[in-house]
């Protein structure tokens, strides 16, 4: 089993990143459509280059924001299904809890799978807290809605003998019968993201691929252990194939360490801008546990986003971290090709193996020339070495 490496960009619109809120309330008068036009085509070209270099590709979506022009992950995937040739196409993901119609999602994803020749990796997410506002979805019971939508989508993709009836608690259809059906059988691989151990156990119990984002050494390993608990409790065996795990980090490569660090620092603005959300859309009721909300109200730094521990036990707050701290945590890989190779091997071995490495290789103000150079260096000098590794772990032992 070879580790798969993905190129990810949120398609940022960075020229207005000095605004106090980059989400929800930022008026779209600040969006110049001509600039957005250029950016979309540029980012699509970068995904095409990644495909040619042997990467897989990842997309996501956010709403009402200058941090991400992908307002519909399925739309950009539909373009990439035609524009790319070999890459697995991961959407991570479609915000299931915020969508009114899972059947429509099943239709769109089946179309994408068929157009791409069976290359879709079908990721579902609860959605970050500030997606609640634009979607106007109820923040209570989001995970219950997510699982019911998930079940309906899978049933829609795997039922082939005409319409079926679905009257759940949240979603109601009397005649579900999608055309086309997906090319991959019985359905494209399912991914779900989480940052919580209880969700990780549930995902593990279902055997679905789990994506986790920028949790570094400690958090990621904890989530993988929780997944393994669910996996074992469901009777799936003692060890988990590492292709059940995806991990998202940021990455920049250059010929010199100094230039790579400069590039990585630009991409890391993605995390530093995380606090730029109009209050209180960043903390809708019930999104976080009641106790966490109370801690946040009492916190001297209410804008804090996420605090990680380095392997040496030093706390690092992601919204204000330095590049060295990001690297120490395993949230950023940056340097020459050799350095990045070593950082990635150290990280993946330390957490017990990894099947899917998701890399944000474009972010913030990193321009096209820099992005293409970084991608090309990784694609020609790091990717082949990672793919040639024979000593990496295939099974995660809890």
């Amino acid at each position, binding site marked *: 089993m070879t580790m798969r490496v993905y190129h990810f960009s949120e398609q940022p619109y960075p020229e207005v990143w000095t605004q106090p809120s980059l989400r929800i309330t930022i008026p779209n008068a600040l969006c110049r459509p001509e600039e957005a036009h250029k950016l979309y085509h540029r980012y699509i070209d970068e995904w095409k280059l990644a495909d040619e270099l042997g990467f897989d590709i990842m997309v996501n979506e956010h709403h009402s924001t200058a941090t991400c022009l992908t307002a519909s992950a399925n739309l950009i995937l539909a373009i990439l299904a035609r524009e790319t040739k070999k890459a697995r196409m991961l959407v991570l993901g479609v915000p299931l809890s915020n969508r009114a119609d899972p059947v429509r999602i099943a239709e769109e994803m089946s179309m994408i799978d068929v157009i791409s020749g069976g290359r879709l990796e079908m990721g579902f997410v609860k959605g970050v807290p500030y997606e609640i*506002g634009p979607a106007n979805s109820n*923040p*209570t019971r989001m995970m219950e809605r997510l699982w019911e939508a998930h079940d309906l989508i899978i049933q829609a993709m795997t039922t082939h003998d005409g319409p079926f009836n679905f009257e759940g608690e949240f979603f109601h259809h009397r005649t579900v019968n999608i055309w086309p059906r997906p090319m991959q059988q019985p359905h494209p691989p399912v991914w779900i993201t989480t940052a919580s151990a209880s969700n990780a156990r549930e995902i593990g119990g279902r055997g679905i691929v789990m994506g986790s984002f920028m949790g570094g050494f400690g958090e990621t390993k904890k989530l993988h252990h929780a997944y393994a608990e669910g996996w074992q409790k469901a009777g799936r065996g003692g060890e988990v194939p590492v292709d059940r795990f995806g991990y998202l980090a940021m990455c920049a490569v250059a010929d010199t360490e100094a230039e790579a660090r400069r590039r990585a620092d630009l991409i890391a603005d993605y995390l530093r801008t995380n606090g730029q959300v109009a209050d*209180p859309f960043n903390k809708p009721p019930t999104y976080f546990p*009641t106790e966490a909300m109370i801690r946040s*109200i*009492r916190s001297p730094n209410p804008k804090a986003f996420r605090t990680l521990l380095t392997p040496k036990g030093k706390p690092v707050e992601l919204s204000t971290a330095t590049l060295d701290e990001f690297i120490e945590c395993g949230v950023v890989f940056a340097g020459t090709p050799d350095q990045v190779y070593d950082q990635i091997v150290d990280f993946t071995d330390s957490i017990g193996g990894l099947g899917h490495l998701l890399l944000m290789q474009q972010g913030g103000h990193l321009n096209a020339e820099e992005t293409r150079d970084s991608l090309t260096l990784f694609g020609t000098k790091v990717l082949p070495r990672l793919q040639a590794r024979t000593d990496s772990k295939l099974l995660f032992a809890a």
Partner: protein
Amino acid sequence: MATTSPPGMQAAALHGVNVEFSEKGRGQPLLFLHPGHGNWGDHAFLDALAADYRVIAPVAPWFGKEAGPPLFSSVQDLAYLYLDLIEHLGLDNVVLAGSSFGGWIAAEMAVKSCQRLAALALLAPVGIKTGGRNVRDVIDVFGVPDKEWQERAFADPSLRFELKMLDDTGLFIRVRAKEALARYAWTPYMHNPKLRGRLHRISCPTLVIAGGKDGILRSGYPRDFADAIPGARYEEISGAGHFPHIEQPAQTAGLVQSFVHQAGEGAQRAPVRERV
């Protein structure tokens, strides 16, 4: 399911749903339904009413410390629950009062049945849509910082405070109340599109009280609400924001008492309403 109630609280098990309520005073029963932030600040008002009434003040499921019924997700669930509570306690001739979100529940109860109600008192109620589709009748309480919410809610600056000043229990209840309110009132936001067309069913004397400095409701909204209820009386308390019962407890209680008194006299003069 038996649970231990906090001091001063009683509990009733109604068809598998546990309802906690406080009770004080004697006489005609008065059921008070708290607003969306829970029962914070209502003591002086309830004490004033308890001089004349047997005041029963439940805490809506999900607003308290315990988890509520998993399937409770709408104001209808609360309206039926409280109608059950009135029956369970064997109450009759009830004065039903509610503030803001509690006023919405009270209105939903009254359109279902006024059989056991003597009078209805709605304090800056929400629950209907009267403005146009681009008009917010109720500010987005989930979309403004707490500081702004307090400034809009209270005319008296001394009632405003930073949330972190609350003790752990107080803060827990406050956060839980916001969570519960989202469960019941997220969308359609703070109203039931069907309710306005049903308000004609309210057959008991009704009083709508508005705060003269209410920054939560659109100006004119409480009067629209009163106009939609047959024969309802409209009163305004100039020195109050969105919560007259918290800011002007004596004056608000006095308005309710005199209204109920007059309504009672009127009922004695009028032919006795047939009760089924």
